């Protein structure tokens, strides 16, 4: 019996980790600046490629993953400085600009690197409960997703940077008047967002085929999680991921991956009819 319970938890954890890791970076950028980074998938791809490149050079996997996340973060800060910065007052244009960037990056990678790179296998290791065998790495991914949520909670709720950035999120002009360097806050937040995207790519790099268009695999999940989460990212993203993971897991188990994805999309379309502001609006109202 406990084996079945654990099996359900394991499947839930797998989907939940995927949703949180792919959406966290996008959610932070959207929550702070109201910008949807259409090049999110390309930062994920960047994290995966850097990881695999470093591992093939002989760097241990965990260190390669951390370095990959940092690389994506630094590139993110650069992109913010060169492009995104100009569009904070025109969120729709930021969508288009980052989409243009995404096209440039994906297609240049196809031109330069070619379609496939030698991958690195999933780290071995499995354990058995009852009659079932489970992969350890999938649980590591779940632990990482929880750690990302905990880390974001600490950064945004317990540090000075968190206070200033939440103030900026609430009222940028007022925060600026009180001496917060909002420009720098935005740059750092964008860097954190793309760094998290890089981390997602780094963590999933061992489990999938590396192609320049791999970012597209993650964007649907990250989009719908952010849409359901709503504007208050710190409150909304985790519950949204829990809800979507339950729907997805139930459908995956009985009908397979693609029906799971379609079902998740249908659920999202139904949910926005009732809760256009996302889950966080309900939670914020309850909290008052």
């Amino acid at each position, binding site marked *: 019996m406990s084996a079945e319970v654990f099996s359900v938890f394991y499947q839930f954890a797998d989907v939940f980790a995927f949703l949180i890791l792919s959406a966290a970076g996008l959610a932070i950028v959207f929550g702070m600046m109201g910008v949807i980074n259409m090049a999110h998938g390309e930062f994920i791809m960047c994290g995966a490629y850097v990881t695999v490149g470093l591992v093939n050079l002989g760097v241990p996997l965990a260190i390669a993953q951390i370095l990959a996340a940092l690389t994506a973060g630094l590139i993110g800060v650069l992109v913010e400085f060169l*492009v995104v910065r100009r569009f904070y007052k025109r969120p729709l244009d930021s969508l288009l600009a980052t989409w243009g960037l995404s096209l440039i990056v994906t297609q240049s990678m196809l031109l330069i690197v070619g379609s496939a790179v030698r991958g690195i296998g999933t780290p071995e290791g499995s354990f058995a409960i009852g009659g079932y065998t489970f992969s350890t790495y999938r649980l590591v991914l779940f632990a990482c997703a929880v750690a990302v949520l905990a880390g974001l909670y600490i950064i945004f709720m317990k540090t000075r940077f968190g206070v200033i950035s939440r103030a900026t999120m609430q009222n940028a002009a007022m925060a600026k008047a009180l001496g917060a360097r909002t420009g720098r806050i935005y740059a750092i937040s964008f860097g954190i967002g793309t760094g998290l995207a890089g981390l997602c790519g780094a963590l999933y790099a061992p489990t999938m085929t590396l192609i320049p268009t791999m970012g597209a695999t993650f964007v649907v999940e990250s989009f719908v999680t952010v849409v359901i989460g709503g504007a208050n990212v710190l409150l909304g993203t985790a519950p949204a991921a829990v809800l979507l993971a339950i729907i997805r897991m139930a459908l995956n188990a009985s009908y397979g991956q693609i029906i799971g994805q379609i079902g998740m999309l249908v659920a999202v379309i139904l949910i926005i009819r009732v809760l256009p502001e996302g889950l966080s609006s309900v939670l914020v109202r309850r909290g008052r």
Partner: protein
Amino acid sequence: MLKLLEGPQTLGRGKVFWSSFLVVLAGALTYPLFADSYDVGNFAYFLIWIFMALGLCLMWGYGGMLSFGQTLFFGIAGYGYGVLAINMGGGTATIVALMLSVVLAMVAAGILGYFMIWGGISGIFFGIVTLSATLVLAFFLGQTAGPEWHIGSARLNGFNGMKGMDPLTVGDFFIEGSTLYYVMIALIVIVYLALRMLVNSGIGNVIVATRENPQRAEMLGYDVRKYQLLTFVIGSGLAGLSGALYTSWGQFITPSSIGLPAAAMPIIWVAFSGRSDLTATLVGSFLLLFGFQTITVYSQQAALVLMGALLLATVMLAPQGFVLGIGKFAADWWSGHRRREESPVMAEAGRLQSEET
């Protein structure tokens, strides 16, 4: 009715504009007489996509709804045409298949649009929800490779795409080559003029008022959601028309014409051209399609990199669109050298643009 062809929502009026319109039309009609059939077929191929661009122009430029789902409805109607044409057995039935597949795309747009618009989704979220739906359709069709995936006798064939449907046919006569080209030209003229009438009509004014300020339009007593849904259904239906014509033109369709990067293309055409005007979109989209096709022959990736760069450059340098921007520049230059009334078309371009920025 004909008075609605000109109005405050569209650029171009008077004798100069309409005579140049007729000159271009005459050029387009005589083109097959002195070009070889391969080039005519290619030309017809560019024209397929114009409907999709005009539809997006209506939704985004006039309605203020940035839909990233043009290829979703393109795909629904494209696959719809294939399934219907194969199952109904070709012949004149293909004309019915074309109409039904466009209706199918419009019904799908109506359903998706109802949930989004009545849910109050707008702005950025409108874009990413439509894009999510588009990508999910592409993923779904990409994994329908097995023989168990069929609708009637039409195999979906996964990533390799569906093939084997008849092109548009009347009796025993296949509408191909230069006949298809003429059908395409006729459809574009009809759609272009009809859209001009639509946006200059009372309905069009409400659509534009909703773009400018939804609350104000609502206070004036209009149920803006109905107008938005109408706009979305028409715009998406035009994407469906492109899709059905595309399948008929090449007798195949694959999921890659739905997913990324295909989904970005209509956005780039319309953004580059100038989304706030139908004529600018028509001209600009055609130029971009022509240029893109020329470069794609050498390297598809390079062409797509260029398209991405073009989108980035448009948003950074000329957010209203390059074709409109150049129109304005030319108008300034022209009116600096000549008397103003000699170029009412261009002067109008400049006027509208300065109002919007």
